[in-house]
């Protein structure tokens, strides 16, 4: 434990920082693209709806390891060189988007059709309905699933270790490789993951109680 903190604090911090970066970028990108895809899926444009459905069906069922290997090692063969960092983010975002889309779509669908029809009956235009009625309710319903998505992306960033990137999981395995500290190093990393997850869950449930939708 002493060795860990004396000699490897910097290494550990770097690993943690990479994990934080991948999580933050991956989550934000997945949220934005997932929202767009969810709009595709509820829109009245058939090709966009089909595209959204096929995308979700594919990327929800693909193992991230397989996709990661394909993107990281395969894309250069097809003449696309993104480098490890962006390749990992690409794979992470591609899968995250599918889950984000389904989460957000479930939020939109949770707003009852009757409310939308009532709003339309009193003459509210489309954007009015979206802004005043659907979005506020949808956002509130999906807070907790979005926290789950955030934690999912956090855990998935560990897969960057598979292609040799030095994020948190591979950092502790590297330190273990140098010092053979047994379980200790790994438990420290596990504790960090648990702390981040619990913090996210805590913030989520705070927000949820504050903005609860009464039905």
């Amino acid at each position, binding site marked *: 434990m002493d060795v860990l903190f004396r000699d490897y604090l910097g290494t550990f911090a770097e690993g943690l920082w990479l994990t934080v970066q991948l999580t933050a970028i991956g989550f934000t990108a997945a949220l934005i693209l997932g929202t767009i895809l969810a709009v595709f899926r*509820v*829109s*009245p*444009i*058939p*090709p*966009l709806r089909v*595209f959204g459905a096929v995308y979700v*069906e*594919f990327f929800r*069922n*693909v*193992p*991230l*390891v*397989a*996709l990661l*290997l*394909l993107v990281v090692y*395969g894309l250069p*063969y*097809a*003449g*696309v060189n993104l480098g490890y960092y962006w390749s990992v983010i690409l794979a*992470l975002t591609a899968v*995250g988007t599918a*889950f984000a889309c389904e989460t957000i779509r*479930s939020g*939109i669908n949770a*707003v009852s*059709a009757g409310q939308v*029809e009532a709003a*339309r009956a009193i003459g509210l235009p*489309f954007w009015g*309905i*979206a802004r005043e009625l*659907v979005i506020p309710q949808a956002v509130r319903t999906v807070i907790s699933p979005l926290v*789950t998505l955030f*934690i*999912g*992306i956090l*855990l*998935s960033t*560990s*897969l960057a*270790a*598979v292609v040799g990137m030095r994020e948190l*999981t591979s950092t*502790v395995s590297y330190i*273990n*490789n140098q010092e053979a500290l*047994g*379980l200790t190093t*790994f438990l420290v*990393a*596990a504790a960090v*993951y*648990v702390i*981040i997850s*619990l913090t996210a869950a805590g913030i989520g449930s705070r927000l949820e109680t504050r903005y609860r939708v009464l039905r």
Partner: protein
Amino acid sequence: MSAHALFDAQGPRGRATVRVITVASVLALLGVAALVYWQLYRTGQLAPSKWLTFTEPGTIRYLLTGLGNTALAALGAGAIGLPLGLVLALGRLSRRRWLSWPATAVIEVLRAVPVLLLIYIFMFALPQYGINLSTYGKLVVPIGLGAAAVMAEVFRAGVLAVPRGQTEAGLAVGLPDGVTMRLVVFPQALRIVIPALVAQAVVVVKDTAFGYVVSYPELMQSGRVLVANTNDLVQTYLVITVVYVLVNMVISALAQRMEARMNASRGLGRISLLGRARRSTLA
């Protein structure tokens, strides 16, 4: 599935707009597809010689063996995750604090730790204490532990979904706590959670791709070996990815059908645990 109520039935102008966007989006999607095709063609990835490997019986048999091992790994992980998840769920539901508290802690920790970290623990940390499992064990035990935490939450949700009146009725006719759970509540909970447990199999199958990390010859690892021999990386990993997706689609579809049938046959109203069943991992 129809468009969401958010969009009103269009009038003539709306229909014209929809038509324009439809055409534009088809063109855009075709454009992207053409770009991908051109890029693959230009770099020679579509050359027939690079795909012929997958028509050879030897390759097919090799990949099928890999797929078989994927199934073995998934079954092994399920055999650990199901009973352990059940025990954890009952522990968490217990009214005895000394039982529910540790069970809750174990569930929360296992849910918040990446499966890969668990695998690394079994690969690099535990051997230092003389615990050295086979490659199969190093793959299956961590996946099973991760799955146990999620299945525990599924079981718990199922038990909580059984109407309280059932428990009250059991207690009212004089059955002890444990017996009420075993004979009255649990059999009903089990029926409710079966579709969600089947859906959970998707996550387990995806996790088995970590065979690549521990060198257990399941599908992903088989692909890697194949690539080392043929050098057809893009082709091999694409084929494997598609196989995974197809297998998981079949499992998901099965789970959805089971849930639909269950909802049709029960008077309890729609109970969906499928959403909750998904582990927070995307892997």
